[in-house]
């Protein structure tokens, strides 16, 4: 909170730091005994997680394991059955969803959600609009500095005036990421950010995430691509049937037989994990 433009300051946190061991660093997000039941369906059933400040955490799990419900719960878009949520020391399981960005959580969506009537720049500006009045500087002409910067970092400067429908799916996803970055969050929640992207684009996104980490931004990544998880994350959580299966170093988690059975199917050899 020291300077108006960055909320998180500059916390040096690289892979060398012990950020992958929860509890040793400061926690950016704490989830305690979280449960979301829809009628008799226990979509999420008693999850406890701690995300370390300044690191990239990942969640893997098969379809229907409760990842999406967990994200909805973290952004307060679904009602909690029980549990506590704490971000940056503030309990927030009872606030309305519109206040979540103010607490420093920004997100992207699993399915691209951009406004078709607005230009790419205006869509990104929506994120800047979410900042508090003291943190906003609207120039009379042109885009505010952080918006232009976010467009530049995500490689969107050339298409800033285009409409989302004119762009490829992968580029649309980058607009979503730019929109989230420009909110200047303390925690960035990325819900399958590389779905629909080709290999080169995935590498670019992974590089962007690591660069953001080097600037001290904590991130939570939900992905199917195991290789991307191994390349990007400091700490991995594995979910199955609404519960936390295991957590730890990405390679260890992927190599865990229970994870392989639940997520990757029986008979899968941990090639990626051996690397």
């Amino acid at each position: 909170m020291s300077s108006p433009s960055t909320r998180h300051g500059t916390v040096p946190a690289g892979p060398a730091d012990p950020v992958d061991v929860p509890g040793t660093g400061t926690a950016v997000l704490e989830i305690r005994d979280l449960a979301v039941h829809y009628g008799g369906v226990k979509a999420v059933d008693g999850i406890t997680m701690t995300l370390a400040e300044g690191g990239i955490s990942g969640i893997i799990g098969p379809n229907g394991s409760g990842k999406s419900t967990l994200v909805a719960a973290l952004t307060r878009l679904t009602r909690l059955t029980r549990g506590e949520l704490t971000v940056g020391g503030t309990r927030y399981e009872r606030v309305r969803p519109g206040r979540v960005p103010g607490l420093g959580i920004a997100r992207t969506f699993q399915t691209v959600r951009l406004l078709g009537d607005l230009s790419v720049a205006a869509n990104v500006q929506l994120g800047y609009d979410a900042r508090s009045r003291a943190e906003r500087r609207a120039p009379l002409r042109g885009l505010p500095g952080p918006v232009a910067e976010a467009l530049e970092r995500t490689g969107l400067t050339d298409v800033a005036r285009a409409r989302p429908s004119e762009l490829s799916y992968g580029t649309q996803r980058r607009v979503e990421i730019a929109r989230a970055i420009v909110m200047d969050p303390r925690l960035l929640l990325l819900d399958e950010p590389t779905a629909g992207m080709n290999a080169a684009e995935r590498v670019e996104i992974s590089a962007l995430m690591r660069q953001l980490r080097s600037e001290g931004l904590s991130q939570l990544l939900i992905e199917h691509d195991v290789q991307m998880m191994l390349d990007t994350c400091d700490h991995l959580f594995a979910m199955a049937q609404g519960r936390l299966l295991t957590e730890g170093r990405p390679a260890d988690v992927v190599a865990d037989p229970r994870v392989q059975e639940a997520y990757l199917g029986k008979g899968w050899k941990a090639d990626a994990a051996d690397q």
Partner: protein
Amino acid sequence: MSAFYASNLVLVQATLVAILLALSIQVPLRLGVFSLAGVGSYGIGAYVSANLVLREEMGAVPTMLVSGLVAAAVGLVLGVVIYRLAGLYLAMATIAFDLTVGVVALNGGEWTGGPVGLFGVFADLTMGLLFGTVVLVLVLVHLTEVGRLARRITTVREDPELAASMGVNVRAYRLTAFVVSGFLGGLAGCLNTLTRSAVGLQDVSFHLVVVALTTIIVGGALSWRGAVIGAVLFTWLPSVLEVVGEWQEFVYGLIVVLAAIFLPTGLYGLWCSARRRVVERFRPPVRPRRPDEPDVPAATVAPEHEVAAR
């Protein structure tokens, strides 16, 4: 010009009132709230203002303010009760509200004059005041159509969940829609009573729902300019086209049907997309340039400069 103005004073007044009534439906629509409660607010404003002038001998400006605020307060209560309803259910509930206001007007005894209505409502409303009020409202509405607020309103309409994730208090926005709609509707009803010095059951009928909806569907639902276009069109059409006079309802019905099918964004929307197409013709095609891609060779640029120079 002044002769034209004098002979068409009633139409000018009717146009200004129609703009406000249309805005009272349009503002909630822009927020994705399909509420037609503005017509009920219009009725409330019409009757409240008549009572204020007849009983309290209030001046025009306080009457306008009080009428608008009373209708806004009723709108807030209605909003708190029904703002969670979606789509058609909200539309029908608000139509029921409009018609309830009509039933109350019918049974209101000396407060409403029952089926006869109230007459002789004279206040010091000048044409300048009427015109100034509408312009002020249009300026305020315009401010919600530019910049940050416009983006946030669009998000609330198109994707409420995304709006919440962008820090928008969606509930507050939706409730505000009811309040603003109530105020604008009440103001329109008040001005209608003051310009015509009378109020009756025709000011709370279902017909007004059709008129207001028609105005913005044909004019355009997403900008005040649409409300203005629609209000001017439908107020003046009967006097321009003689044949329309007798078959007014039929022609209006036909226009609404055609607009619903072919003009999803109204006349103003049509103008906007046409303008956009022209602008796009002069914009370079959209294509993200890869870092390894060479710069555009100078040779291909030069001839264009020559063409431009000529």
